[in-house]
């Protein structure tokens, strides 16, 4: 199962992911069409700026394996696919109680102002690669199996260690 994995050190704060997300969740699915739509399409990914470090971090729904939002949803509006574990939201059943927002560790529940219900990442069911990942120009957002992602992190880290060993040996 692929997940949206974040490499925050690569984020430049351009917010291309946010725009691509809103466009993908518009009726027209085109930038120029989306900006004219009423109600305006909502993004479900958020670039958060951390002033202490002057760093931007793209925040996405993790579709937690044991998702608190699903567990607390009183109407079953939030549900989780048993196989692919994607958490989806059924606007018809949502009563806008915001319990899900209270328990989400990442603040990934947004608000549809017009309908006064929750709005969240559906991981772009019509796309092979989620729109936010495809739009990221620096690779801060990737779409990979956790194993594959972790392996690449290990390889990267191992390379750094190996360089240290080699430098020590040559001294």
């Amino acid at each position, binding site marked *: 199962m692929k997940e949206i994995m974040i490499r925050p050190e690569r984020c430049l704060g351009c917010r291309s992911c946010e725009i691509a997300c809103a466009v993908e969740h518009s009726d027209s699915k085109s930038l120029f069409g989306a*900006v004219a739509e009423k109600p305006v399409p909502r993004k479900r990914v958020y670039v958060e700026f951390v002033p202490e470090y002057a760093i931007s971090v793209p925040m996405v729904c993790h579709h937690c394996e044991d998702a608190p939002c699903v567990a607390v949803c009183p109407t079953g509006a939030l549900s989780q696919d048993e196989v692919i574990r994607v958490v989806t939201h059924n606007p018809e059943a949502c009563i806008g109680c915001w319990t899900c927002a209270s328990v989400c560790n990442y603040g990934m529940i947004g608000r549809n102002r017009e309908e006064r219900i929750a709005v969240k990442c559906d991981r772009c069911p019509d796309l092979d690669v989620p729109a936010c990942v495809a739009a990221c120009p620096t690779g801060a957002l990737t779409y990979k199996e956790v194993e594959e992602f972790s392996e690449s992190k290990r390889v990267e880290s191992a390379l750094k260690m190996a360089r240290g060993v080699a430098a020590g040996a040559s001294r």
Partner: protein
Amino acid sequence: MAKNVNERSIDPATRAMLLEADRAGIETAWDRFEKQQPQCGFGQLGICCRNCNMGPCRIDPFGEGPDKGVCGATADIIVARNLLRMIAAGAAAHSDHARDAVLAFKQMAEGKAKSYQVKDEAKLNALAAEYNISTEDRSPEEVALELANVLLSEFGKQTGPITFTRRAPPKRQKVWEDAGIDPRGVDREIVECMHRTHIGVDNDPVHILLHGLRTSISDGWGGSMIATDVQDVLFGTPTPTMSESNLGVLKIDEVNIIVHGHEPILSDMIVAAAEDPEMISLAKKMGAKGISVAGMCCTGNEVLMRHGVPAAGNFLQQELAVITGAVEAMVVDVQCVMPALGNLASCYHTKFISTSPKADFPGTVRMEYHEEKAMETAKEIVKTAVGNYANRDPGRVNIPKDKSACMVGFSAEAILGALGGTPQPLIDAIVSGAVRGVGAVVGCNNPKVQHDYGHLNLVRELIKNDVLVVTTGCNAIACAKAGLLKPEAAKEAGSGLRAVCEALGIPPVLHMGSCVDISRILVLAAALANHLGVDISDLPAAGAAPEWMSEKAVSIGAYVIASGVYTVLGTVPPVLGSTEVTNVLTKGVGGVIGATFAVEPDPFKAASLMIDHINEKRTGLGLKA
């Protein structure tokens, strides 16, 4: 790579060279365009402001994030300011080109630039008359010097009017005066654009856009028009002539020199230098059969119009010319020259020669020209190209066979001349309905549009519906390559237009020149309107830029609507982030200047919009739609 080249262009020569690029592992603008995807949404909508260092600021187009920049500028303000800066850059490019042409003209008149002379004395005298300069008992040089000085003063004028704006119909001039957009001087309006868009100056979108129109008029009826007319005096006013176009014009057994960019000042000399017997014999010594000059972009159009020098291609074909492996020198001046050419030329034997004092690129051989020794530099360049023939690798030569004949050279003077010195025959044809109206189709190439697809389909639809097309720039070259500039192309026109073209022996698409020569279209439109005693906005005419990409095109679009001609854009300008600016440009401005913009990427739908507009104007004039 292995891209579907057919999706990238409809031009067979381009497709062939893209396959070759793919095979050779060479990157082109289309590959770089793909690597840029997806392009920044803020940029596409025009809602990013970098005008001060409190920013960069961006407006959230979906209303969740910031709705103002640090200074408080809204999306409407930011979009309008950005658009004004685009217009300023475009007007500056045309008008600075004009300044150089006038400076060369002045040096010629002073006897300091001996390579140049007055080639069209009749036009010189006509311009002198416009400025009340006496020609009696004076040499052409004396007249030229006085004319050069008054033309130069147009740039620095502070209170107007720019003299050539008085060529517009009186009703049009009144529209400009009433709207407060009659330009005061060429340079002044451009400078004021930069002032107004500085932090904390002009922050009313409509006020900003009106100045954009004023600046653009100083381009169309100022800088561009001055460039066209001075170049006509210096190099000759174009008259109908036959030539060829597309990459197939490159010669397998001759030294190929491509002149690329926008100015005829040096390229006209290169054309002459390449005909020098000394140079030709040098080429023969190198084993070549001769020297062949071909044009690219609007430098190409300048020498095509005046000398019938074949046009190798339009904007997106510049890299492909090098990839033929048969180009000894790619000689460039200013505007629309891709910096990618340097790296590309280093993969071949091609020498990438930059010549303008104001434009250099990575990987060039620098051969800067100055008017005083223009012919000397031109010969030097030709000699360098000839010497480079020895380095051509015949195994890498791959010239596509595609080329088409074309009839070019339709200056306003030539068109009126062909009609017997008066626009009456054209007006009669319009009144009878044989010619429904006139469509001006101009502009660039843009990899956002399948190369030449927008141009050719729009033009074909128009002529099929009896709309006479006038063209310049990269659209003109697209039409030339596709055979639409041949008199026989009349067969593709509707029966009314076909009959008119066949009677006159002209193509249904008239090549009027380079992009500064859109001023010729304005002059023609003014002649038609004046003859009828109406405003340009009353004419059954419409404009289009199906594949536009440059800032110059933004200035052109603005002065075309400011002149009263409805204009359809084929690529979306970066304004949709502002509802107000979008509404003003597509609706509101019509109440002020009698013309608006429309955006329509589909060339067939764009043609319908233009035809509907032309029919509406016909009805307005009491003609059958």
